[in-house]
């Protein structure tokens, strides 16, 4: 390899690349944020270190590399406040916990209202958040304009800004650093991180999943923890379990690097765009999901066009920016826009964490700790209990379509 004294040397590897052993106490399927965090907390909080994280591609190359990194906890229902606020609390201490920089920036998250219905829904959510001790506030249009001067708060836009909910403790983080931080910390505690290792099936004995058949051989498992996001339904079907999830492409894009013009996160549910400006200077924007099922990690361009139309209408200055690249991740959407976390009733030792749909990144530390606790104790953590699969039979749904802020 050509070397140059102008280029820095290759940095030290953050974690050791492991070859699969024949057996682990816990096999975590999925080397994204949730899988890595689950493995880390199994080791750090519960002393379970004989753990493998198996990933079919490369570490954090799925939705962990494709999300828009927004972190907030201003969901409507008590169950959601529980898990998302637990997660936000962990975000606030994560750099210290992992001893690694993650560029966590609590620049605030704003959800803009464009109609009387939005205003009522927004105010209701602020009130619900405050009852749960979450730092939500209602902003009038002039206050919105002060926090985001490039946002057009006049009555010119087709859907004018009529106010916004605001959570000052919300913000963004550097997604890659979060994954690498968890991977390094987990590996240091003895977790094996195994990439290029695709699940091809499962071996079972009675009501027990005894091993995972992978592209790198058979790996016996004491317990199985699925953290496969958009591919959870495919994995579960290999265990004979049907999950109420539908996998859709969800697209996002970035602009070229620009001077800092936006120092908070602005989300608009009604016109389907959410924007923040990354530390480097790109505008990062997300769209609504593509309507159809899809596993191709790409979506249709008309969705991007609609998203850009909304962005330029709200932020006229963005008309001068250019789209640098667009991409899609595969999100697993549930009927109530809330996740599924818990034990798979058909199997004695299998657990699933999926259905985070369009909002899983913000939950990474929270669900990692809660899912690890659930797997370690073989009983649902208090915050995971409402998210059991049986809610679709009991009817006790947790409808977060409003607060999910992404159209599905």
């Amino acid at each position: 390899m050509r070397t140059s004294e102008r280029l820095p040397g290759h940095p030290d590897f953050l974690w050791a690349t492991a070859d699969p052993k024949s057996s682990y106490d816990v096999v975590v399927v999925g080397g994204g944020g949730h899988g890595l965090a689950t493995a880390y907390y199994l080791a750090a909080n519960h002393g379970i270190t004989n753990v493998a994280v198996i990933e079919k591609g490369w570490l954090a190359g799925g939705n962990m590399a494709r999300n828009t990194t927004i972190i907030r906890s201003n969901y409507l229902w008590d169950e959601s406040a529980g898990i998302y606020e637990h997660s936000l609390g962990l975000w606030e201490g994560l750099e210290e916990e992992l001893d690694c920089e993650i560029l966590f920036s609590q620049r605030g998250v704003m959800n803009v209202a464009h109609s009387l219905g939005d205003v009522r829904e927004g105010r209701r959510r602020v009130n619900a958040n405050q009852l749960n001790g979450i730092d939500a506030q209602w902003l009038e249009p002039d206050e919105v304009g002060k926090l985001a001067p490039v946002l057009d708060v006049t009555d010119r836009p087709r859907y004018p800004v009529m106010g916004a909910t605001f959570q000052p403790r919300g913000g963004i983080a550097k997604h890659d650093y979060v994954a690498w931080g968890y991977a390094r910390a987990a590996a240091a505690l003895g977790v094996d991180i195994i990439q290029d290792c695709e699940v091809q099936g499962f071996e079972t004995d009675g009501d027990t999943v005894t091993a995972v058949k992978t592209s790198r051989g058979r790996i016996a498992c004491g317990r199985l923890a699925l953290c496969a996001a958009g591919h959870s339904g495919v994995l579960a079907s290999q265990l004979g379990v049907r999950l109420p999830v539908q996998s859709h492409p969800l697209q996002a894009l970035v602009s070229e690097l620009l001077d800092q013009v936006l120092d908070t996160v602005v989300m608009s549910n009604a016109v389907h765009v959410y924007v923040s400006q990354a530390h480097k200077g790109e505008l990062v924007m997300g769209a609504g999901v593509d309507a159809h099922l899809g596993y191709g990690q790409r979506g249709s361009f008309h969705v991007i066009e609609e998203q850009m139309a909304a962005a330029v209408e709200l932020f006229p200055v963005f008309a001068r920016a250019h789209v640098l690249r667009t991409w899609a991740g595969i999100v697993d959407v549930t009927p109530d826009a809330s996740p599924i976390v818990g034990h798979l009733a058909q199997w004695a030792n299998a657990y699933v964490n999926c259905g985070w749909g369009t909002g899983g990144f913000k939950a990474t530390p929270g669900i990692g700790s809660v899912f690890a606790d659930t797997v370690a104790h073989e009983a649902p953590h208090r915050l995971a209990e409402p998210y059991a699969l049986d809610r679709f039979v009991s009817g006790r749904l947790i409808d977060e379509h409003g607060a999910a802020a992404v159209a599905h």
Partner: protein
Amino acid sequence: MLTLPCPFCGPRDETEFGYGGEAGVAYPERPADLDDAAWAEYLFLRANPRGWFTERWVHRAGCRQWFTVRRHTVTNEVVPDAAAQEVR
């Protein structure tokens, strides 16, 4: 963007269509007889395959007819379904 073969109007852009999800999900004949698990299955459980999928579309900005196609959920290759000729 997908190009979808409307059986009545021919191939058209995806933006003219609405999505209907999995094909062949019939309303239960005797809904009152279903227990909670069976009702949940009808309401919430749909196929979600990585591969060939039989699905419904409606030509919303065209002839407004529903039809069925088979689409590969990774490659987005679309082939008309035999049942596509049958308006349901």
